[in-house]
């Protein structure tokens, strides 16, 4: 029986947001086998996605090197080794490849590995006609307005399936941490994972802001602990050095020294995870951890807020009134430090005064149309736009 391949060659956050689509595909065809093609570096996480039988690792660096070789002078051997690499990835062709990236290379990879490709283009890997859901995602990415369907649910639409209606959850496997990190999450409570990095420079929070938040939290909750996370070793050291000696004993700096599986194991031991980098935030939410996100620059809660129930996102608002035709970067003038600390402390008094100029605050939910966010302090009824959009873009699916 022909198997199904899901192609997701983008970054960590996109991979996690692919889980609902895989879940939905498995729901439609519980007996059908589903494999996943993802970047090699993300394979350890891909292997934790429920419903995936096999993870095919895409070594982009290798392809890049081969492309450089072939650019220097095309030889038949360049195609031969590329073909061998694909044969090593998949010994037989897939029936259908669901391609979730708009980059042509993902479509080409899908076309090479499967008989049929369903994805962002309707007319093949060289085509120009976008599938309805792909057009929707593109418009949202460009304008940043009018979006109430979460990207993960749009991926479901691209695959021709409805959202599963439940938050994505990764398989819980034991992963041994290095000995010096083994005690993380074991003593004291609550543990907060603070992600210091961001996918882009414009989404970095100044270190002194993080320092204020950490100090406020640690001073107020004497049993609490903080783990500094992310790739950016220097930022971790910088923040660590700014803390007073009385606080550093309750702070673990693991920046720049964790593998993805280590990161997942550490996140799983946290009670909260805070940050701006959507990739690790999505990972944390898929591990069942409560997430507090600070979204600014080009990040938007309705598209890429952590998928699940009870996550909180602070969204920096465009104070110009959002009158731009194109999506613009929103740069906060102040930060919701006290308010976030209040949320961490579960302080009811704080929870009622979550107003910060330039920011709105949103809470996540999940229903049959997928994930949605409602603004705190207002009614939590789901936005009706989603159903209408599904009816417009996927009428056959709804039937």
């Amino acid at each position, binding site marked *: 029986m022909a198997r199904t391949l899901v192609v997701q060659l983008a970054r960590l956050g996109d991979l996690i947001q692919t889980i609902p689509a895989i879940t939905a595909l498995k729901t439609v065809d519980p007996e059908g086998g589903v494999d996943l093609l993802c970047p090699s570096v993300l394979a350890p996480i891909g292997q934790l996605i429920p419903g995936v039988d096999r993870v095919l690792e895409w070594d982009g660096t290798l392809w890049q090197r081969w492309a450089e070789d072939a650019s220097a002078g*095309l*030889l038949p051997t360049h195609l031969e080794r590329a073909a061998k690499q694909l044969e090593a990835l998949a010994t037989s062709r897939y029936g259908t490849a669901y391609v979730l990236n708009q980059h042509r290379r993902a479509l080409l990879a899908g076309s090479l590995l499967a008989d049929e490709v369903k994805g962002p283009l309707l007319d093949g890997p060289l085509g120009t006609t976008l599938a309805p859901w792909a057009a929707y995602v593109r418009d949202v990415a460009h304008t940043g307005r009018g979006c109430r369907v979460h990207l993960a649910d749009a991926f479901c639409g691209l695959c021709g399936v409805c959202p599963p209606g439940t938050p994505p959850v990764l398989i819980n496997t034991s992963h041994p941490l290095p000995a010096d990190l083994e005690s993380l999450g074991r003593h004291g409570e609550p543990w907060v994972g603070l992600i210091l990095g961001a996918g882009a420079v414009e989404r970095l929070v100044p270190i002194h802001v993080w320092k204020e938040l950490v100090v406020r939290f640690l001073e107020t909750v004497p049993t609490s602990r903080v783990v500094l996370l992310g790739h950016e070793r220097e930022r971790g050291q910088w923040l660590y050095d700014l803390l007073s000696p009385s606080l550093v004993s309750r702070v673990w700096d693991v920046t720049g020294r964790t593998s993805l599986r280590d990161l997942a194991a550490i996140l799983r031991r946290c009670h909260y995870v805070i940050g701006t980098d959507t990739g690790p935030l999505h990972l944390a939410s898929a591990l069942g951890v409560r997430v507090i996100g600070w979204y600014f620059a080009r990040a938007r809660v309705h598209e890429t807020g952590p998928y699940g129930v009870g996550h909180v996102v602070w969204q920096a608002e465009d104070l110009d009134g959002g009158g731009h035709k194109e999506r613009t970067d929103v740069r906060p003038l102040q930060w919701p430090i006290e308010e976030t600390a209040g949320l961490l402390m579960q302080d009811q008094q704080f929870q009622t005064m979550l107003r910060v100029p330039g920011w709105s605050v949103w809470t996540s939910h999940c229903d049959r149309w997928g994930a949605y966010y409602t603004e705190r302090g207002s009614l939590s009824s789901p936005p009706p736009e989603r159903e209408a959009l599904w009816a417009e873009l996927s009428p056959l699916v709804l039937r």
Partner: protein
Amino acid sequence: MNNLLDNLEWLGKTAPALAEAVRLAPGGVLSLLPSREGTVTAKCGDRWIHSSYDPRKEARSWADAQFKDWRDEEVGVVLGVGLLYHVEALASLKQDGRRLAVLVPDPSVLKDALGARALGRWLETVEWIWGHPSDMADRLAGLASPLRFMTYAPAAGLHEAVHREVEASLRRLVAARQSGRLRIAVVGPIYGGSLPIAQYVTSALELLGHRVTWIDHSVHHTSYKRFNSYQDARHRLTMQGRFAELLSLDTVARLAEDPPDLVLAMAQAPLTAGVLEHVRKKKFPTIMWFVENYRHLTYWRQLASSYDYWFVIQRGDCVEALRKAGAAHVHYLPMAADPQVFYPSSLTETEQREYGADVSFVGAGYQNRRLLLPRWLSPEWTFKLWGTEWEGAADLTSVLQRGGARIDIETCRKVFNATTINLNLHSYNGPSLDPQADFVNPRTFELAACGAFQLTDERSLLPELFADQEIVRFRSPDEVPRLISRWLHDDHNRREVAEAARRRVLAHHTYRHRMEELLAVIGLRQPDRIGAVLRGDRNAGALAARAETPPELAALLGRFPPHQRVELKDVADNIRARGASRRLAREELLILLLDSYRSETRDLV
């Protein structure tokens, strides 16, 4: 057991003539000694040819390093015989089907090697190239494969001159066979003497059929000159330095937008070491043609290791100095002339009156010229002096033309053609002739290309470029008046000399010849990239005809004219141009996939 006889028997199976030559050779070039670990090692005079501790280990390590770059389709050519430890190590690494050749400049050395130890069957697997250097070059060229030269320096050093001769012959052969089309970026200076040469080089490369992008920085000269107006020299130097850095980045941006196969920079091109390092990381071979006197302009010291190849107009000390400063490959490449620019022309009477004279000199007012030219004025001949920087040369005011204004190239050619005797005195900031007179200036070639008669000061490198019957030289300033008198009224012989010089230039000394030579050097050093393109191996027809080319790829290549160089991008563009909606073949998808990564590799800036 007699090692020599046994080994000769093995050698004789594939190279009987060489075996016989070895048998007759006296041997005894190498002194054989025991190494610390017990095997035999060798010295030549005071020079160790192999390790005194462990020659096998040393040879293995050398062979491993060579093997990394050696590709299946290339013939490995070992320079340096010694006791053949290194060849044996290489032969043990190579898989069946790979070809390994060894150059044998002196059968006596091979006799020492064959007598020193038992070698055995692997001798049969090697192609032995021996004989006269030009014969060896013929044999190598006849192998019909890319050549990968592997130099075992301690042994090769014994026959450097022969190796150079072989390489020179080979370059000539390779140059004559160049058929492929390279993309070459020529980076010119902001101003100065190498600027017109950058233009000549560009034209020559285009004439050879290559696609050339001239990155012309002379358009920024006006801005650059503006910085001269600062009163404080530090300000000027800082601003001009920063400006040159900016232009260096501009060069990189241009390379990124249209990536070439190689980057050819002319002397004074504004490329910094940092930028060159960046360009090298992106695997663009970089070449500097340093058309300057290395003793006067010394910035080559800071950039020696930054270029992959240096071409210089001086031999000997210049080449050594660059190597010591870190240059990996240094080659002598003399100046030349562009016969499209410098050619014999008839002038109108008016022009003849304006530009003509019995004796002329065109050039800038260097110290030696200021002191010597007045000595060569005479009431017996008319004299005209053209060029700039003659301020204060009172003795020459009466002959200086146009008040010492700069003259353009066309005017220059007219002066050459209109003058009976052109003086060609190489520049020198001293009182007389250049005591280190080696390189030959462009004017020598340009005058010859015009069919103009010249009297030139003697240069050590001149005799290998022009015969005595082609250019008349003087060795001391005192000879000049006598030579002028001698040739001024001898129209017939003067014309014969000038015409012979012109024939020589057209046959051997145009920029086209120089660029053929330059590309042949790089082609030999980079057989898999530049060499392959030059040989035409990257042309559609050659690629399609390769045995390993699958029919589907051959069909894609068949869409191009057979002699057109085809690259990944070309094939991908062709696939895209054939329409989006059709079902793509696997090879087409693979090409497009590779191309999607290629288009992301231009992160040069």
